[in-house]
Every structure is written in structure tokens, then in C-alpha cells.
């Protein structure tokens, strides 16, 4: 039971992180590899807001999301928009976002130094309670609720709002979207802002959850995030959620039943198998792209 919950918490954070990846991929068909840098930056900024600024984490979280959104806009403007229409944009986007991500990490190193940091111990409630024989901290419960609310909110946004419709139109066919009077650049930028805001919240929550923030935390979760979006299906929001949970649970149970040394192998084996058998992922629709 404890392991089930462990997997659930871990998985929901994976999912929150991966949604940022998948959102951008869904709309642009590109991977934004600066996403892990946003994840790390958010944790450090969040810690500074709480530890130095003396804010409560409930105030800090929205601010962190805001910082993430701004970073997202910068990423879109600097690393992706200049590549628009280039035949090699697929590879170039990977590299330019790696470059920008590297710059962000270097700036973090300058501002915060290389040491690990954490949210002040007294910043959030530490009491634990028991659920069916498993110990859960109040914080963890809160994290789960926040993740689920954010993901539900996002799904609603994409499915029901004007912005969501515009996003889907751009994802479907940017040229047609332009004809329909949609400002593709603006929609794309908004998508980046949203995705990075989610990544930022994920970063801050992750740092709280494990009591540690490190410059490399983004690259540590990056591979997991990629696995999640593949498992869930590229560009699929519910897919990212389910994929995150599947991965979190698979890891936890791999530790329990197979051995901790093989935990990551299980994750990648799963990923590999799925790609070979069902490349569109659990929830991805096979794009009806005629020949």
C-alpha cells in the first residue's frame, strides 16, 4: 500500500512535468529540451521566494508559475520562432533548446551556486497521517491535489475554451489555422508559456516533495519525462497523466519485485516495448496522415 502511494505521488509529478513536453510536442511537433532547465529554475526561484522573500508557499507557487510562463515565452521567442519554416527545424529545435537550457542552468549556477538547496523546513506542514497503513505527509496529499487540479484544468482549457480550440487548430494544420484568422505565433507562444508554467510548478513541487533542489534535477527527470510522453502517446494530455502514473508505479514495483538495480531498466524496457508494438502510445491516436 505504501508502495502504491509512493508510485502515485512520484507518477503524478512525472505526469505534471511530462505534460509540458507533450503540450509543445502536440502543437509544434518539436521537443523542447529547455523544459528540464525550467523545471530546475523554478525550484530554485521558489526556494528563494520562500526562504529569502519570506512568502508562504501558497503565494510562491503562483509566482513560480509566472516565472515559468515568462521563461516559456523566452524559449519560444529565442529558440523556436527563428527556426520557423526551416527544413531542418526538427533537429535545429532540439539543439537550440539545449543551448538555451544550458544558458539557464549556467545562470542558476551563477545566482545560486552549485550546492543543493531545499525549501525551508518550516515552510510547509510536516505532519504525517496514516492511510490504510501507509504514511502520507500533508504536503504529499496537497501535491497530489494540485497536480490533479492543474491537469484537469488544462484538459478543460484545451477541450472547451477558445484558446484551446485555437491550439488544436494550430496543431492540426498551422496554415489552415492562419486562414481561419488564428494568430499562430500568439497561440504557439501561449502554449509555450502554459507548458513552462506547468513545468515550473512541477519543479517546485518536486523539490518540496523530496526536500532537495539541484541544478541537475531537470536532466535527472528528463528521460523519465520522455518515457512518459511516449508511453502515454505524444501530444495526448490524459496519456501523459496515465503514462506518468504507469511509470511511477512500474518503478516502485520494480524495486519491490525485481530489484532496485533494474528499476530504470524496467522503465526503459517498457518504453522500448511499447514503441515497437504500439508507437502511438496508449492514448495517442495514430495520426491519420495519408501516406
Amino acid at each position: 500500500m505504501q508502495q502504491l502511494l509512493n508510485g502515485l505521488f512520484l507518477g503524478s509529478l512525472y505526469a505534471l512535468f511530462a505534460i509540458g513536453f507533450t503540450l509543445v510536442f502536440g502543437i509544434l511537433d518539436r521537443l523542447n529540451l529547455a523544459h528540464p532547465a525550467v523545471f530546475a529554475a523554478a525550484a530554485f526561484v521558489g526556494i528563494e521566494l520562500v526562504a529569502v522573500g519570506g512568502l508562504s508557499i501558497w503565494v510562491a507557487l503562483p509566482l513560480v508559475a509566472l516565472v515559468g510562463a515568462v521563461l516559456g515565452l523566452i524559449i519560444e521567442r529565442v529558440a523556436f520562432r527563428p527556426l520557423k519554416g526551416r527544413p531542418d527545424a526538427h533537429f535545429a529545435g532540439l539543439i537550440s533548446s539545449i543551448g538555451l537550457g544550458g544558458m539557464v542552468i549556467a545562470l542558476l549556477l551563477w545566482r545560486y551556486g552549485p550546492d543543493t538547496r531545499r525549501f525551508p523546513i518550516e515552510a510547509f506542514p510536516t505532519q504525517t497521517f496514516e492511510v490504510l497503513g501507509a504514511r502520507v505527509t500533508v504536503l504529499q496529499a496537497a501535491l497530489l491535489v494540485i497536480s490533479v487540479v492543474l491537469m484537469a484544468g488544462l484538459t478543460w482549457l484545451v477541450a472547451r475554451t477558445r484558446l484551446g480550440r485555437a491550439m488544436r487548430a494550430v496543431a492540426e494544420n498551422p496554415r489552415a489555422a492562419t486562414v481561419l484568422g488564428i494568430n499562430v505565433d500568439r497561440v504557439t507562444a501561449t502554449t509555450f508559456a502554459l507548458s513552462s508554467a506547468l513545468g515550473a510548478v512541477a519543479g517546485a513541487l518536486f523539490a518540496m516533495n523530496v526536500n532537495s533542489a539541484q541544478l541537475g534535477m531537470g536532466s535527472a527527470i528528463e528521460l523519465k519525462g520522455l518515457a512518459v510522453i511516449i508511453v502515454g502517446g505524444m501530444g495526448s494530455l490524459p496519456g501523459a497523466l496515465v503514462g506518468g502514473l504507469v511509470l511511477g508505479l512500474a518503478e516502485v514495483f520494480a524495486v519491490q519485485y525485481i530489484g532496485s538495480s533494474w528499476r530504470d531498466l524496467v522503465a526503459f524496457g517498457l518504453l522500448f516495448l511499447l514503441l515497437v508494438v504500439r508507437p502511438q502510445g496508449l492514448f495517442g491516436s495514430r495520426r491519420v496522415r495519408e501516406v
Partner: protein
Amino acid sequence: MTESLVVFIALNAIFAFSFYAVLVAGQLSLGQAGFAAVGGFTAAALAPEPRDAGELPTLLLAIVVGMVVGALAAVVLGLPTMHLRGVFLAIATLGFAEAVRILLINAEWTGGANGMSVPKIVTPAIAWVCLALVAYWFWRQGPSSYGRALAAIREDELAARAMGIDVGRHRLSAFVTAGAVAGLYGVLWAFYVRLLAPEDFAFGTAIDGLVMAVVGGSTTWLGPLLGSGFLTAVPEVQRALGVEAGWVRPFVASLLLLLVIVFLPGGLGSLIPRVRVRVPKDGAGAEGGGRLVERPRTAEGEAVVRVRGGNKDYGGVHAVRDVDLDVASGEVVGLIGPNGAGKTTLVNMISGVVPPSSGSFEVLGTTPGRTAVHKVAQAGVSRTFQHSKLFPRLSALENVLVGAHVVSRPTFLRRLLWLPGARRDEQDVVAHAARCLDRVGLADRAGEDASSLSYGDQRRLEIARALASGPSLLILDEPAAGMNHVEADSLSELIGSLAREGLTILLIEHNVGMVMKTCDRIVVLNFGEVIATGTPAEIIEDPAVIEAYLGGDDAGPARETEEVR
């Protein structure tokens, strides 16, 4: 400039070449770190003591082992993943590399995280000789028929298939090359750094290799070397310039990376002028082509296409319904009908590009749908597409050369050895391609990128490319679309002259005048069904046809899904 810097530039360049090997075919793989790891570790474990065997023999043996193991790993990974594209392939291969790393960490014989100690044998000279050999390989590969086929796959996979290129095999062989080169890197690395640890082949290593290959540019074989020189030297230069150690260095390195990518499309390699295939002076007119691969010809009147009860459903929409169609050798058959009548879907099925939902298709002894597209093309079917599917970053001449794939002899291996026959074969194919270009009136545009041609020229280039394979059946899908009168007239003359040479032609065209003028027989489709067949004179009188056309183009269901995009 330290010795190690000289060595690392060479080693990194070799690693970058292993990415280049697949990038030229448009594949994004991150598995190279895994290939290098298995190659390096196996070679280090199996290599004899340099004391017993001598240093150079030890290294040579290790290199052979490493490259073979790397290539085998690529086959093992490649077979199940070759159907994946783009990011999916990247992540699958990345998963493989991570799995390899975890296995190596957990294995006894590798020494786990503490690694394996390996004698240092590699010197700058050895490293650069290896690099020179690898670079030579890719230099000779580029303009060979194999290299052009890879470039075609990168530019447009479907069009490459339709030109008779076995995409799966080409992609796999590119992948295996990458595996072997990565294995070489792994061995050289092991025998230079003295300690081989799984850590050296982590995700970051793969990313570094990809970055070097992309920054260097995948359009010239010098790209990986440029990329490696640039990225390996950046920290050194910063050190030499006295940039303070710490955050500034990675910041500047990342910034430079971003600037190069954003402002130099095509990477550093784009600074070097591209060498293009040129038409030899006497090329276009000269006789020759004797060295092209002979293709079987069909006898006059023999059945070329035989379709019975052809059906195609798209999620309940019947794009093509119970169509019977026969085309005999030497015939020019026109396929007309309102928009969305199913014409393109029908020819897509005939050329094997789209599998039929049901019905029997026989084309030149193949069964399209079951026979792979490239095999149908090799049997003698050549086609153009409703929306041009040229290879945009290749020149007009190179496009036609790819079209000549099935008639050109493979030249890569002979090019490696500088055999004179390879050169003669190349010249013959180029001369043949130049004649095809001349035929459609594009002789003076040979050196231009396909993407820079006007719309009408692109349509004609596609016809030249289709002709280059010396087909038995030529399928033209709306070749005159977007052409003005003059162009359309010369096009219909061209079709006429091709028909007189005995070529079988299946023509989809909205320009009814042109169809009437050029075709022996016309088939009219509406709502996916054949509503009339006959000579032009019969068709023009047919009430069902008149009804379909007067009923209006607009009435046709807007089923653009059938288009080949």
C-alpha cells in the same frame, strides 16, 4: 594546444560522424552512445594484453571487435525500430542506450561504476588516421547512388520509395554504419583515456554527439569535423583567453551553440560552398547510357494494369468502389472525373502507395498493396504526384539522378577504391539524367535547388524524374495543374512523343482538352465508381459523363483525404 585536445577533436569528430551517418538519411538516433559503449567494453574485455600482442595489433583487433559489435548492436536495435520516425526513433534508441548503460553498471566484468582499466595506445596520429578513414568513407558516400538515395529518403521518404528505393534497407544500412562508427569511437576512447566507465556513455554523451553533428551540419561530409572542432575547442579557447572558471564558461558555450543554430541554418558546414553534380559539357547530347541497367520492356498490347473490384474505404467513406480497370502496353489512358471522384486514390493503389481495402490489383507482374512500393517501382511503374513531391534541398539534376536509381549501378564501393568504372557509370547516369531534364526543357536549370524552381518547372521536373527510371508505365497525376497555355501545350506534346515511343501512360488531368488530344481511351470516375469508359469521342457524348460534369464539380464530396500529401 595540448595533445589530448588534438586527440579529442578527432575522437569527437568520429562520434559526430556516427550521428551524421543517420542524419543524412533523415533519422534522429540517440543510440550511438549505447553502440559505443558495447563496442568499447567488449573490445576492451576481449583485446589481448599489449605486452603479449604488441600495441598496434592489439588496437587493430580491438577496433575490429568494437566495430563489429557496434554494427551488430545496430542491427539488433534497428530491426524492430526502423519503422519509427523522428522523435519516436530518437527516444526508442535513447531508451536502448540507457538500458545498455544500466546493464554495464550492473555487470561484473565491466567493473561497475568504477570502470575497467584499459592500456593507453591511441596517439594523435592513430586518432587522426581513423578519423581520416571515416571521413573518407562519408566523402565517397555522399555523391554515390547510395548516398543520393539516403538524401532522397531524408527529403521525402514516400517519393524515394516511389523512385524504387528500398527505404527500409537503406535506413537500416545507414543505421548499421552509425553503429560501426560509434563502436570505433568507443574503442578509441577506451584505449585513450585509460579508464572505461559506463558513465562515459550516458545521455549527455549522446546529446554532445548529436549537437556536434548538427552544429557541423549534415549537408557536407566535413560537417562533423567542423562541429567537433568548434565544440571541443570552445572550453579550451575560453581557458586560453582567461575566462574565469565557473558559470561563465558553460553560459558562453551554450550561447554560441544557440547562435550557430539560429543564424547558420545547415550548421557550420553551410559556410563551405556545396559541390554539386555538374552536367558534363558534352553530356546532354552525347550518346551513351549503354552502362545503365537494362529494364524489361513490355510487349505491345500486353496487359500492364489489371484491376478487378478495387475498393478503398476511409473510415466508412468509399473513395473508390468496385473499380475494374485494364491498361494495355502502349496505351495512353486518361482518368477524369470531378474533384474527389477517387482518381488519385485509384492511382495510389495502382502504384502501391495506398493499400486497397479489397479487390485484386496486378501491375506489371506485381500485386500493389502486397508488394512493397519500391518493388512496384522497380517493376517499371513510375509516377508523379498530385502535389509535387520533389526532394527540395537537392538540385534539379540530383532529383532526376534519384529518379534514375533503379537504372543506375551501385557505385559506392567502387568509389571507395577509386575504380575507374565507377566514374564512367556516374557520368553515364548523369548524362542520362541530363537528357531527361532536357526533354522537359529544364536543361539550363540543372544546378538549381528543386525548391527554388517555379511551380510549373517543379511539375516538369517531377516528370523528368519519373522518366529517368525508364518506366514501362508512367502515371501522371494532374501534370498540367498550375501551368499556363504554352506550358500545357508543350506538355501535351511531350506526352504525345512519349506515347509514340511506346510508353504506357495513365494520365489524370482536369484539362479535358489535353486529355482528349493525348489519350487513346478515357475512364471517367464519379463518387469512386467508373461511370464511363471509351474513346474520347464516345466519352464526350456519354450522358452520364455530361450529368456528372454538369451536376457540378461542387457536388463532389470534398474528400481531400485521398490526396497524397
